[in-house]
């Protein structure tokens, strides 16, 4: 015979068991007279508890409601600043998503334009608009790496890094912005979760 399931019988009787646990208790109860007896006793107890008389002699419903109405204090109006703060707090994730979408759009558009310009699609006008078009680096400079010696390659890379590459500092700024937005968003989520958890556990304990 399997191990007794005494501790689970209450939950079984209350219909709180499911799946494997339920099947286990059912199977055990079917073959164990002691646990069946326990279960029967729990059923008797539940029936006995119901015999406790209901409350009597209390204030009739309408009078009860009227008495409460008399005791209701005017609800203090929430200060405007607090309302504004709450609204701002709720708008944080939406704003962050908006900023993220904006950054993404700017980067994609800028990237496309720059790639087009580097590809020579912009003609002479483009040359003037490119970051450091006079003094800076072009993609072709990178391809030169295969034709030069190690010392020259180092020099080229150094200058490449100094100049920020063919797309300028945009990727770095983009990455920093994304990390920043992500951090803010997760911080907001974490604090929302903490507040949510606290409000769930918070019990209005004192009057007033």
């Amino acid at each position: 015979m399997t191990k007794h399931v005494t501790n689970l019988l209450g939950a079984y009787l209350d219909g709180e068991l499911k799946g494997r646990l339920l099947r286990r208790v059912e199977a055990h109860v079917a073959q164990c007279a002691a646990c069946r007896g326990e279960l029967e006793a729990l059923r008797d107890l539940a029936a006995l508890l119901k015999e406790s008389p209901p409350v009597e002699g209390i204030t009739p419903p309408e009078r009860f409601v009227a008495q409460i109405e008399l005791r209701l204090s005017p609800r203090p109006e929430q200060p405007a600043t607090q309302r504004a703060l709450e609204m701002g707090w709720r708008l944080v994730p939406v704003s962050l998503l908006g900023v993220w979408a904006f950054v993404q759009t700017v980067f994609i558009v800028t990237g496309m334009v720059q790639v087009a310009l580097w590809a020579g699609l912009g003609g002479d006008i483009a040359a003037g608009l490119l970051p450091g078009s006079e003094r800076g680096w072009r993609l072709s400079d990178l391809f030169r790496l295969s034709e030069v010696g190690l010392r020259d390659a180092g020099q080229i890379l150094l200058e490449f890094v100094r100049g920020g590459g063919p797309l300028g500092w945009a990727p770095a700024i983009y990455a920093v912005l994304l990390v920043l937005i992500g951090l803010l968003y997760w911080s907001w989520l974490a604090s929302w979760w903490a507040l949510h958890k606290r409000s769930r556990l918070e019990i209005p304990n004192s009057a007033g």
Partner: protein
Amino acid sequence: MSPGETEEELISLAKEGDRQAFSQLVRCHREGVVNVVYRMCGDANLADDAAQEAFIRAWQHLSGYRPRSPFRNWLYRIAVNVARDVLRRQKETLDIGELPVASSERGPDEVLEREERGERVRKAVLSLSAASRAVLVLREYEGLSYREIADTLGIPMGTVMSRLNYARDRLRRSLTHYMEL
């Protein structure tokens, strides 16, 4: 609840300070709240006052209610806390043995016997610790699920189960005589 107004609507009106809406909520949940505090306190007069106190607290803290859990459970949570406070205040003066016996009219022996049994049960429930009693009352008299009890009292499901087992075990031992009848 008046036709056309859901509980959510009444709650949101009450949150804005509508007393009529709140009164409507009181009407809807009066019975349950009174029952919970009565089972917790064991005295009709105390239960009446405690239930009113619970609704006053609910009004004062209504802005803190979030509709993640049913309004009824939120009210029960307040009711259990109010009942605990009342019991704490009464602890030095109130003796379970001195609690007024529920009104009983003279009648056939069977009726008297049933009433006596009911009284014994009431006192046995009152002899439990407040924590175990709260779980037992919400389960046996209000029919809340373990999950709802856990949410209402802010305790883990495992604790609900263990407190319920403990309470039932204690009651079985103290009411053995009546269970054998």
